[in-house]
């Protein structure tokens, strides 16, 4: 006796699969489809402006004039520009000092916020305020506080008898840099604090308890338990922060305009000054691109370090 299944009717419970479904069942196509929106967004907002910037930097383009190919002439010109060199130094100093302070204060704040206390949720939300307020608005408030004539900081210090003549916060080259650093640290600490707090909360309390039972003191627990486990998160946060600080614009633009006498001029403010103020788009793009190799180096070193930390 033989049985044939060929003529058996199709099972009515199985839905009919369309060509799209069949295509997406192939993992390669599914991966492409899922990645496509991200690729399009990155292409539009990251890759295209970057390529356009590179293209502009090797031409003599001005506003409304496409320009001719000039090779690396703009880079040579920028390299010989005294103000650009000042901007390079200022940007490195600004980034280095603010990063150290933001990390130290952010970590300290995160450790404090990781404890249990009354009003914890409110304090955690409140601490984010400097990060939430639009930079331009908060910087305007700082500008008022640093005002040479009407500074509230000077007024308080004067009333307390600490100073007898006013401090020229934004008029003195050194103090102007100190002032922009203070504002950047104020604005950046919440980002560090909240991100590090998230990192701290992933560390199991049992590890601390075990260390405490073994007789480890608070500092030893931090040094040998908390810090090693927090390090990968910290490095990623520092990486993001360095990139953002290196390209900072709003704060300096509002507070000092790069002055006095370029004492606070940064890459971004100078690029804007040249590209927009003078219409020399090619040179503005060149100044902006000059940041790229430095940042690339920072990113490579940090990513390699993160990988090393994670594999150990």
């Amino acid at each position, binding site marked *: 006796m033989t049985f044939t299944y060929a003529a058996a009717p199709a099972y009515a419970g199985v839905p009919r699969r369309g060509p799209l479904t069949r295509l997406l069942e192939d993992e390669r196509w599914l991966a492409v489809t899922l990645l496509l929106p991200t690729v399009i967004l990155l292409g539009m907002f990251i890759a295209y402006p970057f390529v356009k910037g590179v293209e502009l930097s090797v031409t003599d383009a*001005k*506003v*409304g*004039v496409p320009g001719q190919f000039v090779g690396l002439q703009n880079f040579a*010109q920028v390299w*010989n*520009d*005294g*103000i650009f060199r000042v901007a390079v130094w200022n940007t490195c100093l600004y980034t280095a000092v603010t990063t150290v302070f933001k990390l130290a204060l952010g970590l300290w704040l995160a450790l404090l916020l990781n404890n249990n206390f009354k009003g914890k949720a409110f304090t955690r939300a409140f601490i984010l305020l400097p990060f939430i307020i639009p930079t331009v608005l908060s910087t305007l408030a700082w500008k008022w506080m*640093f*005002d*040479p*004539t*009407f500074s509230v900081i000077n007024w308080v210090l004067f009333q307390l008898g600490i100073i007898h003549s*006013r401090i*020229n*916060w*934004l*008029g*003195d*080259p050194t103090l*102007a840099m100190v002032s922009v650093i203070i504002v950047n640290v104020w604005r950046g600490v919440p980002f560090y604090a909240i991100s590090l707090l998230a990192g701290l909360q992933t560390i199991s309390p049992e590890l601390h308890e075990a260390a405490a039972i073994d007789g480890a003191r608070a500092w030893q627990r931090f040094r040998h338990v908390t810090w090693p486990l927090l390090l990968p998160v910290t490095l990623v946060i520092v990486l993001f922060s360095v990139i953002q600080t290196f390209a900072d614009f709003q704060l300096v633009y509002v507070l*000092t*305009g*790069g*002055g*006095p*006498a*370029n004492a606070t001029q940064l890459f971004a403010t100078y690029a804007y*000054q*040249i*590209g*927009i*103020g*003078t*219409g*020399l*788009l090619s040179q503005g793009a060149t100044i902006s691109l000059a940041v790229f190799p430095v940042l690339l180096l920072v990113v490579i070193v940090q990513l390699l370090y993160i990988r090393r930390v994670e594999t150990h």
Partner: protein
Amino acid sequence: MAHIDRRRLLKVSGAGAVAASTGGIAAILASGRAPAYAQGTSLHWLRWSDFVPASDQLLKSKIVPQCEKALGIKLNLEMINANDIQARITAAIQSGSGPDIFYVIGNWPQLYVESLSDVSDVTEEIGKAQGGYYEVSTAVATVGNKWIGVPWTTGGGLVTYRKSWFAEIGYSDGKFPQTWEELRDAGKKLKAKGRPLGQTLGHTFGDAPSFWYPYLWSWGGKEVESDGKTVALNSKETVESVKFAVGLWKDACDEGGLAWDDSSNNRAYLAGTISATNNGASIYLEAKKKPDTYLTDTGAPLWQDTLHAPLPKGAGGQFVFVFPSTHVLMGYSKNQKVAKDFLRWVNSKEIFEQWFTSQQGYSDGATKYWEEDPVWNVDPVLLPFRDIPNKGRLAGFAGPPGRASAEAITKYIIVDMYAKAVQGMVPEASVKWANDELVKVYA
């Protein structure tokens, strides 16, 4: 919806069209009806937020409706901060879309020459009807014989000063120091009383060049020769001006000025912390608008103790840094004809006069006709502003106000030359630094 039959349509549209083709703007105005071709057209006009808010109010509440009635153009008037105009115009040009007409200041038209429409027909008509444009207005708005913008105003700064405080140190009857030496001596006495002179040496686009460029010129210094290429800053005159500036700053000025922006001196003067500052008429107008808010130490309204005078003279003469303003029609605009009609209309005597009156003396006209306007008879304290266009010079002197001069001013090279010396750099070295920077710019 209102019914319009064929006969009525022909009658209405015919009035505008015939008026436009035969009688020009006067006939359009007389007909009280928009020409047919412009009806329903909208025009995007971008301007700065004026230092005289009443003028912005007038544009919004009166000029926009009048424009719609007279030309049939729906005016989309946008006002933004002066500092943001260049970013907007750059984005508009690069993308080929944006406002049809931009309001620009100083020598900005020269930065966008390739992207602006030829408006020679409009300007020649207006110039002819209004006594001709000032030299400074022409210089920034032309390339060769072609007009790339329609001049709107000129203007600049004068020293706003406290009459009674200067009287206390010997300048009675509203007199003001005539030379830089006199000003330093006066400022020294005033600073000793806690009433210094106030001037910015910071990176700010208005007040910083408005003071330090004419200061340089008055000593005989200049950026370049008349060829517009040969840098001539490093001269005996410039070095002398820098040496004197260091003393002037320490002896007579509020040293916080190194960080001042364009509004800092207004605040300081209105608060009574400085005795004099180079500025437009905005300080005086603000004090006059709020007589109960801004008072002198004796309780009198501050505006009654305020006068205006030109900056002192030096061996090279006496100058004002002029800020011409211009309307430019963008090449990408699809409303070329309508925009030109609008520019003709808004610059006509009847319309411009309304705006000019609202300025109360803050601005000068771009043509000589406005020197005779009754606005100058209203308040004698503002009368000195009338003479600014004739004493004015533009950045880039003795060369033309082209792209290089714009770059020099944007980089604050002249301002920083003085700032560096005030901060301790040897005057000769600061002049050499500035000269070297200018050489790169003008190369």
